């Protein structure tokens, strides 16, 4: 019920809002929760598992019950929602809905500061002022809509608050962030702040010199029978609603407390004309007891609430002295937990303080200090973890309202022998709700300790302090901005010619070019046929290109590659393979010798950066004496592969002077004057060329190639053509467990020089005869296409687990040249099984296939020279 005057709300600004479709009115300065209470609405969504009626309990982030759906945002505590005109919310029972699309705008900001003060209550304000006056760069962040913290909840907000915020505003290097929750504290004083802004939010990444944790404290509820009844509220929240929002949450109140703090609530209620009975569980009351009595209230010591009545909202409290007191509000305080979350996230240790019956910060691991209530600067507290019911039952003593977990649940856990809070948590799910046990956590530890006769065990906290929308973490890194897309100089041409694309690393590569009405299979077969029978061209610009310069480059390449490059002739090219130190294939590509002291190494599209890093690592850390410099030139060149028996005619027409032997290249000019590097390299077995031009000549050169009636082909055709020749693709036919020998490529492994990984190729494990070898597979039914990844088993093995696996399919295609399907596979001892039939069990059917040599097309190599 709203009082006619008082509070920090703006009565001149009434705001209309709806909850579950019902229209209410609140004021600017309200939270959704205070506006609901002001409108006389106490009950929120029923409890998630038991369906019990529930009401608003708290006034801040610790609220366990009043979760609402706010547009696209699920499960927001109504106590943290700033009321705006037209707000529409739905109450929830434990689960929200993630609605698409989330059109709110989220962004990120990265800042440094000397001092980050978390929490703008009295302690935080004092800290920020002291730091700010020194000239330090200060950020003061608070989750509330205005600075003040607990000072906003007292009857008369002290004038000091206005003075301090006024002075802080004059300090150029001090920034106050409101609606800004510091939710994560990571290594080296790196903190993250979720700032709520109209229509979205901002994620702050802060690197702070020093951090002051003035995060306050959360009040604990009391655990008595039917303590979840609407009308049972935290005493501090009752006071906040009364003083800050001018909302009276009851007319007849029972205040049950284990400490002095609730007396302030009792006095403020009395001043507002509420009947108050204080049930103090301690033997001695607070000094304020006299003032309670003087104001017309009653104080009973050694007395607790042991149960509640109501239908469903509170109509009476049952006291431990046997009396039933009629009331419509039970304000409880079981003590206060310093908000040690960030201190603990930062690696700080906690200490159990017997006087407070709470955890307080012990040692900090990072440059931070806790101040005010967060440091344990609180009134003493006499803990009362559980209050027995007259009937001896524990099944309505709620510990975690959000998980509907009771003392009976905890006792069931400890009764089965669980001792660790972590086990009890997993068994009962206590503390796993959206509030992460802000009201339940320490209480549960107390209940466990009471059950086991021990002291409460330690606990640690992890980010986030409060839930953070994924949309905020993502910020603008969504859709096209999620990851950079790299495109070649020919990309627009591929788009115009309706290529489909595949992602290779960050690159968009033309996959195939379907003509109208063509399926992928049709298009790829057509492109393959063109490459084998006529002439076809592919954009190969994405291949990694590294220029290596220096007098020791030949020696360096000899040490890195499995084969030798020091004696490669200038003007020649050689296919090379790289292994890691474990002898496993890492990458491959053609290396060109451009000059005595200059080589160009090409890499696979996906590994370009990794190979450059690999070269740099060895040059810097192992062989700094070698005079070699590496430069990535991937994006400086456009590369066009021209393939097929008709390719010579096309290239000769474009560059009349070119007459190249296989695996040689020339730096020349095209007939139109464009400088070009043309190489005779083949990844298909056909006569083939690679035309390299500066990237800005890429498109015109490609168009010149296409003008000769050349068929464009994409990566899928490239994969088929190379597989027909048994050429492996690193990362598809290899997976980091495959040596060059396993691939059947002994010829590329030099016996005359050591290279990185050479020693590993003589380890007992790498010379096992039953290693997996790369082989070809021909399904017995030539139309059957094996799925890539299919497991292979012996033909005579029973398909009842465990089934011994022989290997798996790494590549599988339809071949135009072979007129059938085929596959490559890694098979145990595969080269010794040539001619054998293996089975690929595919769930509903078994595909038999014959193991063959991996080179299925033109094994004699007759097509290479056209």
């Amino acid at each position: 019920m709203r009082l006619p005057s008082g509070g920090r709300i703006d009565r001149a600004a009434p705001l209309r809002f709806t909850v579950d479709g019902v229209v209410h009115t609140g004021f600017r300065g309200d939270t959704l929760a205070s506006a609901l209470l002001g409108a006389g609405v106490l009950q929120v969504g029923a409890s998630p598992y038991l369906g019990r009626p529930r009401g608003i309990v708290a006034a801040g982030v610790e609220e366990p019950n009043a979760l609402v759906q706010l547009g696209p945002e699920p499960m927001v505590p109504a106590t943290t929602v700033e009321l705006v005109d037209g707000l529409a919310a739905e109450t929830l029972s434990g689960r929200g809905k993630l609605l698409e699309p989330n059109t709110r705008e989220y962004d990120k900001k990265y800042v440094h500061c000397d001092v980050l003060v978390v929490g703008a209550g009295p302690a935080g304000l004092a800290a920020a002022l002291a730091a700010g006056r020194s000239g330090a760069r200060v950020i003061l962040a608070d989750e509330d809509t205005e600075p003040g913290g607990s000072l906003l909840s007292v009857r008369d907000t002290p004038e000091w608050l206005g003075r301090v915020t006024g002075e802080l505003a004059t300090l150029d290097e001090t920034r106050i962030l409101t609606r800004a929750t510091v939710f994560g504290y990571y290594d080296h004083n790196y903190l993250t702040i979720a700032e709520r802004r109209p229509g979205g939010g901002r994620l702050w990444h802060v690197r702070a010199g020093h951090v002051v944790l003035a995060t306050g404290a959360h009040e604990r509820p009391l655990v008595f029978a039917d303590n979840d009844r609407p009308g049972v509220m935290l005493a501090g929240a009752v006071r906040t609603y009364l003083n800050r929002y001018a909302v009276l949450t009851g007319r007849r109140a029972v205040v049950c407390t284990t400490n002095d703090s609730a007396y302030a609530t009792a006095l403020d209620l009395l001043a507002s004309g509420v009947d108050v009975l204080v049930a103090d569980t301690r033997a001695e009351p607070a000094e304020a007891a006299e003032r309670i009595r003087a104001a017309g209230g009653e104080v009973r010591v050694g007395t607790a609430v042991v149960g509640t009545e109501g239908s469903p909202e509170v109509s009476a409290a049952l006291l431990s002295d046997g009396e039933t007191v009629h009331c419509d509000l039970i304000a409880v305080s079981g003590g206060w937990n310093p908000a040690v979350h960030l201190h603990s996230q930062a690696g700080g240790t906690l200490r159990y303080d017997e006087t407070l019956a709470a955890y307080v910060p012990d040692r900090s691991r990072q440059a931070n200090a806790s101040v005010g209530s967060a440091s344990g600067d609180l009134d003493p507290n006499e803990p009362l973890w559980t209050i027995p019911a007259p009937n001896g039952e524990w099944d309505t003593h709620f510990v975690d309202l959000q998980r509907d977990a009771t003392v009976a649940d905890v006792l069931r856990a400890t009764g089965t022998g669980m001792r660790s809070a972590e086990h009890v948590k997993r068994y009962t799910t206590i503390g796993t709700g959206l509030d992460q046990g802000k009201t339940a956590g320490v209480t549960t530890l107390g209940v466990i300790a009471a059950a086991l006769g021990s002291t409460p065990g330690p606990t640690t906290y992890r980010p986030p302090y409060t839930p953070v929308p994924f949309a905020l973490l993502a910020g603008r890194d969504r859709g096209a901005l999620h990851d950079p897309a790299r495109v070649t100089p020919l990309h627009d041409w591929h788009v115009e010619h309706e290529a489909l694309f595949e992602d290779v690393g960050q690159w968009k590569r033309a996959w195939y070019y379907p003509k109208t009405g063509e399926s992928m299979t049709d298009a790829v077969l057509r492109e393959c046929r063109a490459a084998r029978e006529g002439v076809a061209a592919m954009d190969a610009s994405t291949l990694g290109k590294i220029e290596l310069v220096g007098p020791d480059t030949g020696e360096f390449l000899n040490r890195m590659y499995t084969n030798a490059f020091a004696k490669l002739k200038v003007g020649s090219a050689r296919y090379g393979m790289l292994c890691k130190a474990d002898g496993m294939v890492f990458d491959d590509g053609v290396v060109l010798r451009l000059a005595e002291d200059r080589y160009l190494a090409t890499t696979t599209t996906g590994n370009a950066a990794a190979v450059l890093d690999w070269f740099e690592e060895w040059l810097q850390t192992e062989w700094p004496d070698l005079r070699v410099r590496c430069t990535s030139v991937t994006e400086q060149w456009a590369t066009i592969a021209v393939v097929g028996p008709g390719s010579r005619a096309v290239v000769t027409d474009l560059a009349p002077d070119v007459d190249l032997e296989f695996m040689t290249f020339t730096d020349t000019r095209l007939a139109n004057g464009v400088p070009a590097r043309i190489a005779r390299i083949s990844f298909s077995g056909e006569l083939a060329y690679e035309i390299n031009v500066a990237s800005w000549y890429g498109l015109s050169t490609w168009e010149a190639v296409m003008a000769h009636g050349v068929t464009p082909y994409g990566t899928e055709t490239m994969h088929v053509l190379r597989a027909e020749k048994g050429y492996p693709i690193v990362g598809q036919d290899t997976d980091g467990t495959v040596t060059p020998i396993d691939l059947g490529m002994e010829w590329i492994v030099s016996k005359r020089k050591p290279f990185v990984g050479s020693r590993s190729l003589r380890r007992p494990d790498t010379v096992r005869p039953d290693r997996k070898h790369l082989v070809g597979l021909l399904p017995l039914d030539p139309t059957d296409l094996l799925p890539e990844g299919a497991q292979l088993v012996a033909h005579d093995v029973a398909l009842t687990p465990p089934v011994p696996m022989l290997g798996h399919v790494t590549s599988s295609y339809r071949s135009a040249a072979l007129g059938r399907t085929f596959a490559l596979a890694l098979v145990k001892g595969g080269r010794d099984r040539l001619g054998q039939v293996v089975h690929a069990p595919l769930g509903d059917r078994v595909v038999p296939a014959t193991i063959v040599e991996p080179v299925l097309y033109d094994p004699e190599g007759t097509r290479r020279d056209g």
Partner: protein
Amino acid sequence: MLQIRCPWCGDRDEVEFGYGGQAGVPYPPDPDALSDADWADYVFVRDNPRGRFAERWVHSAGCRRWFDAVRDTVTHEFEERS
């Protein structure tokens, strides 16, 4: 997010760096002279201490230089270079 001091560029966020594992494990001058066990030790076995650890980093998104640093694996504190 660690803050790592690149000897050439100064303090930078961890995202700019690549990790190179234990420092001070040189490539054997003559791998062929090693027994299988000694070679396997070089290739596969690294220390994993709780506490002080000398390790390699590379400033991948900066100057691209490799360097060694000593870090406490419990607290993540780096030792100042003398």
